[in-house]
């Protein structure tokens, strides 16, 4: 077992992990932060996306031991300080950017990473950035719309509902 210490959603946490403990398992099983989902477990689907040191990564394809000393942010850390939904989460709700919701944590984390590096993405840039996030319900249009709206852009022209 290896002792790891990291900051998760602003709080310092530590735990003993096995060498093969994935970051996603540490978050879900040890910290009980089950908002991070595991869809494919083969780094295709993106439901497990979290931020490590500010960058979007697939937490099913990184070991907990590799996050020792890192700043980790999960979907549980995305709401505003008063508990209200942040601008991206709110936009997903307003634009019906989710149906079953399974992919949504990863979508929101990827969207936040995109908007940090590109505050006003084009529709094509949003779609391109979401290449590693799979949704089997929405057909993506409303997810794209929500992210465009969260970036403060007019979404009337975004492709079909």
């Amino acid at each position: 077992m290896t002792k790891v210490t990291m900051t998760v959603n602003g709080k310092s946490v530590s735990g003993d992990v096995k060498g093969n403990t994935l970051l996603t398992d540490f978050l879900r099983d040890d910290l009980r932060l089950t908002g991070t989902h595991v869809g494919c477990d083969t780094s295709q689907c993106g439901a497990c996306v979290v931020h490590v040191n500010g960058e979007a990564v697939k937490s099913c394809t990184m070991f907990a031991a590799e996050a020792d000393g890192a700043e980790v942010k999960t979907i549980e850390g995305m709401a505003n300080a008063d508990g209200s939904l942040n601008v991206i989460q709110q936009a997903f709700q307003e634009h019906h950017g989710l149906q079953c919701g399974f992919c949504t944590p990863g979508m929101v984390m990827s969207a936040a990473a995109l908007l940090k590096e590109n505050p006003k993405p084009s529709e094509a840039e949003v779609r391109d950035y979401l290449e590693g996030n799979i949704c089997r319900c929405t057909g993506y249009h409303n997810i794209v719309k929500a992210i465009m709206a969260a970036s403060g852009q007019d979404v009337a022209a975004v492709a079909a509902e």
Partner: protein
Amino acid sequence: MYSFDIQRPTSVADAVAALGTDEALPLGGGQTLIPTLKQRLSAPSVLVSLTGIADIKGVCTADDGALCIGGGTTHATVAREASSYPGLAALAGNIGDPAVRNRGTIGGSVANNDPSACYPAAVLASGATVVTNNRSIAADDYFQGMFATALDEGEIVTEVRFPVPEKSCYMKFEQPASRFALVGVFVAKYADGVRVAVTGASEDGVFRWTEAEEALSANFAPEAVDGLSVSGDGMISDLHGSGAYRAHLVGVMTKRAVAAAS
């Protein structure tokens, strides 16, 4: 996954020492190795993570103008910082997806030498030098077939040095499910000639298409490749495309790369 210990050395020397253990494997960004471990296709006793070694991360320019990329540098960093070599930056920015690019490293890709990976095409087409913890290896000597390289057990790719071409472009025909290269062609035009490297196509892994190199060195235009063809023998053949189809795509992607080179 089988169980193993994980170590995170902070220097190359410590990593090399840790890799001296039986059954130890180096772990780059893990974007290939971790899925492989999950499938129980690999059973190391120790994984030596290279992500804690600051010395092998980053992009810089050498005195001779070569672009030097640390082996532990992520694809995202190369895409952002390799601006002196736009063809290479564009290649890095189109590997996998954004989250994969934030973890995957050039050293890991080059050490793994997946026959469908993008970086080997750039390394070979650039005549780059693969630098390890104890030697420098020319690209022409480095790639030795599918998943095979000149690396010894426990040898770590610390840097890849790319001579910067006058013009270059990488064109990838993506396998639609995995988004790996069904065929990818990297064309690099240097003052002393053109080099063309092909990934995704051959059962022997990345290779140089020397006939196209000669034709393009004489006339750097898409038409120069007209009339040249690659044999379908020895090409990968699977449900995504036959060997003959891949061989055809080599010509098509080469022409597209020449047309778009900048």
